């Protein structure tokens, strides 16, 4: 017996590799004109892993106190070999990660992939989006620069609007009534322990469902196949689909490294609690559409509106009976397109409008 065989048998006896390999060998992925979207989810997973790795590396040098945070990031950027690269990759991949989650979510929504029996995949997916935004929000503060400090101030302020527990929630988030070094340490705890723990659990479920149920095929394609207008095509996961995944991941890595090298992520100015806030404070880009909306409607209307919209968004799949029956649902398509356009428009306005 060769060495590889011996190794295989050792593990197989203990972990039942045969079963796993059999599953993987037989796993196939539908192949049709919309199947390019199938790669986006895997790309999100890849970027998450990139974040975990670069995050752990950053943890080796980062100091989560108001006195040392900014300096420690400066240290990483200027004294640690390739520190600038690790930190910039972490920042760019974070934004790409959240951006792709939105793409993934909307592509799933517009293709109605959330329909029966994949409702739980959808719910865990939206939860993952919220967790990712939590990562983004908490991580943004960690370099403790002036921009992040102000954005956190503005962002956490909205916690007060939660009914009944608003004040408590604000104090819980900030580690006090104001944004201080205590907030920083707390956000650090969220960012490196709480959120990773929760995400691992929810992500595990999400992937479990995906493996169990396979990829959903859009209704239009199903119809074509049923009517005999096109053959059903599937490609093997191993190795065809996986090679394609890896190709995408490689190009993504290249893009991130390119951006990191040409435009290293900036340090900004160290946070100064006593400095008065400039007029144009903005949260990170993925919150801008909400922030901008709140400039046009009364705060209470805006905050509750978004809360209700969020809950509705999670539950919408349960009410899409048409898709469950295999029929096209134009209303939901309109809702989806509207959501995308609204978010895009408000984000653009938030950045381009004069006096903003």
């Amino acid at each position, binding site marked *: 017996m060769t060495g590889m065989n011996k190794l295989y048998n050792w593990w197989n006896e203990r972990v039942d590799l045969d079963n796993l390999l059999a599953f993987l060998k037989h796993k196939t992925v539908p192949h049709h004109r919309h199947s390019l979207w199938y790669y986006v989810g895997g790309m999100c997973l890849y970027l998450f892993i990139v974040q975990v790795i670069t995050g752990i590396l950053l943890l080796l040098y980062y100091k989560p106190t108001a006195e040392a945070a900014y300096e*420690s990031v400066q240290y990483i950027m200027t*004294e640690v*070999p390739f520190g600038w*690269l690790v930190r910039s990759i972490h920042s760019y991949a974070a934004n790409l990660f959240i951006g792709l989650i939105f793409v993934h979510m909307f592509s799933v929504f517009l293709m109605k992939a959330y329909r029966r029996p994949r409702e739980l995949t959808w719910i865990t997916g939206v939860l993952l989006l919220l967790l990712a935004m939590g990562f983004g929000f908490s991580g943004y503060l960690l370099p403790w620069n002036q921009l992040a400090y102000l954005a956190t101030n503005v962002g956490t302020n909205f916690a007060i609007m939660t009914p009944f527990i608003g004040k408590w929630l604000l104090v819980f988030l900030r580690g006090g009534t104001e944004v201080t070094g205590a907030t920083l340490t707390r956000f650090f705890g969220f960012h490196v322990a709480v959120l990773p723990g929760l995400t691992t659990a929810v992500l595990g479920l999400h992937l479990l469902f995906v493996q169990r149920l396979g990829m959903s095929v859009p209704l239009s394609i199903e119809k074509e196949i049923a009517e005999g207008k096109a053959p059903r095509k599937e490609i093997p996961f191993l190795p065809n689909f996986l090679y394609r995944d890896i190709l995408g991941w490689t190009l993504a890595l290249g893009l991130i490294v390119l951006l990191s090298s040409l435009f290293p992520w900036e340090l900004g100015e160290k946070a100064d609690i006593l400095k008065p806030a400039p007029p144009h404070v903005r949260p990170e880009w993925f919150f801008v559409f909400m922030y901008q909306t709140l400039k046009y409607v009364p705060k209470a209307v805006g905050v509750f509106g978004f809360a209700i919209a969020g809950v509705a968004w999670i539950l919408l799949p349960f009410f899409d009976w048409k898709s469950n029956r295999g029929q096209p649902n134009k209303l939901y398509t309109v809702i989806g397109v509207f959501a995308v356009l609204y978010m895009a428009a408000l984000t653009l306005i938030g950045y381009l409008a004069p006096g903003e």
Partner: protein
Amino acid sequence: MGKEKIPRREAINYLLGAGIGALGVATLIPIVKYIIPPAASGAGTSSVSAAKVGELGPNQGKIFKFGNSPGILILKPGGDPSSALGYVAFTAVCTHLNCTVQYREDLKEIWCACHNGHFDLNGKVMSGPPPTPLQEFRVAIKGDEIFVSSEET
């Protein structure tokens, strides 16, 4: 050329292996270099190694870098170089107009050349325009290094 014609499949596999190997190396090298701690001391302006024991003679001072601003370490006249009690350390930023102060061995005082400010070895203003004393740092000796820190006790 006399070589066997390499089947295309093996060629691609070979290239793929080589390419991914190169990518792996290109990824691992920065990670490994990153993980090895650099020579420069860590970030954070609260504690810094200012000098080695024996570097200063009695009644001598040294300017060192404390974060982004200068500090001054002095071995007092008659001070024991191996004990932290023999040293004093202050910020070297004069409290008048932020010039860098220096140690005057003849006067046994800290002196600012810009407007003739004098500070004693407790950092107190003895004469001249500085309005407040120099912020004092704590001195500790670990091994053969003299550490200066701005933390409260």
